[in-house]
């Protein structure tokens, strides 16, 4: 303890320790993941996925979604690139769900705020949602709801990627760390700041009184509110910290975070260029249902 025996001291102590911990973890883990990723660009991922046609494809696509960065500006090239190269529609959706929702930044943030078990629960259930909802969409046979021009083109999966030297891979990973830290440092400070405030000032019985399972509609409501909010895993952290402060239970909080990252209105707007609105509704419905069930499950288990 740097500042013992006072509320302010306890809060400051928590704040300093936790921000330092999260920044170090972020830097180390993002560096490692980006370095690995330089060996596994989306184009190589696609070559792997275009050969798999069963449930294995959904599993692989979800796992690969962890290490692949995602921004809504690459949603269209990814979707077109996957489908035109013959990756099944359900497998493509598994990837589209996992990529923004499950990644190293979410892992580090949850780890820093709530510890290992919550971080792993989030990643694990996120993967299951991506696999199952992709497999379900695949079973529905809704290829006719993709804009026809997409299937009229077909392309080779053998891209002529530039070769990277070890030095370039390190530069790539370092650049990625700086990029992400620049984007998220403020969210980390705010998120941890809220946590520190609770830690120092809010008495435990206040949390205990309100942190029960809550009303039955808590989870679906959290998912609905999450859809128009669009953010990456880091940006949603201050909100997540505030929610738990208000006594919202963990299952509801995780469902909210999943909804914000995986279901986003701007991304739906972009996807309208390549698929019919009905397919977007099916996509949102299946994924939303998966998130709601996960929220209830963890409210029941974690209490």
């Amino acid at each position, binding site marked *: 303890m740097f500042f013992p025996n006072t509320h302010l001291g306890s809060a400051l102590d928590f704040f300093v320790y936790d921000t330092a911990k999260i920044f170090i973890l972020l830097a180390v883990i993002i560096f490692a993941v980006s370095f690995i990723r330089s060996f596994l*660009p989306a184009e190589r991922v696609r070559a792997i996925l275009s050969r798999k046609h069963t449930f294995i494809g959904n599993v692989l696509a979800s796992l690969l979604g962890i290490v692949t960065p995602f921004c809504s*500006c690459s949603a269209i*090239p990814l979707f077109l690139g996957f489908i035109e190269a013959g990756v099944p529609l359900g497998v493509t959706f598994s990837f589209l769900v996992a990529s923004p929702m499950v990644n190293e930044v979410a892992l580090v943030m949850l780890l820093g705020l709530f510890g290992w078990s919550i971080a792993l629960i989030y990643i694990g259930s996120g993967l299951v949602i991506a696999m199952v909802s992709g497999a379900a969409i695949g079973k529905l046979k809704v290829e006719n709801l993709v804009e026809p021009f997409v299937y009229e083109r077909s392309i080779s999966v053998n891209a*002529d990627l530039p070769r990277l030297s070890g030095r370039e891979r390190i530069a790539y990973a370092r650049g990625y760390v700086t990029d992400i830290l620049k984007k998220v440092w403020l969210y980390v400070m705010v998120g941890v700041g809220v946590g520190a405030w609770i830690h120092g000032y809010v008495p435990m019985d206040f949390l205990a009184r309100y942190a029960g399972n809550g009303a039955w509609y808590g989870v679906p409501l959290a998912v609905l509110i999450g859809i128009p909010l669009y953010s990456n895993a880091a940006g949603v952290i201050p909100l997540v910290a505030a929610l738990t402060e208000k006594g919202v239970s963990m299952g509801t909080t995780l469902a909210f975070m999943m909804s914000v990252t995986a279901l986003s209105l701007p991304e739906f707007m972009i996807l309208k260029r390549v698929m019919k609105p009905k397919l977007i509704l099916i996509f949102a419905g299946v994924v939303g249902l998966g998130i709601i069930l996960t929220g209830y499950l963890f409210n029941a288990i974690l209490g």
Partner: protein
Amino acid sequence: MTIQVLGSGCPTCEKLFKLTKQAVEELKLETEVEYVTDVQKIVAMGLMQSPVLAVDGKPALVGFVPDVKGVKEAIIKSIA
């Protein structure tokens, strides 16, 4: 020699476009840098990440933006 920056028009792509123009100037290459925002062009090259720096139609940088030194090295490597 043709040098193109392909992207979806996002800020990252524009940053690469600016850096590439600067790199071409500093390398004293006699060519213009073309900015392409048709995503289908990227997909047709077999790529799925944006932005892309292409030299004579071949990808030299894919999916990330280095500093201007990195852009110069990528251009030199692909014309060598």
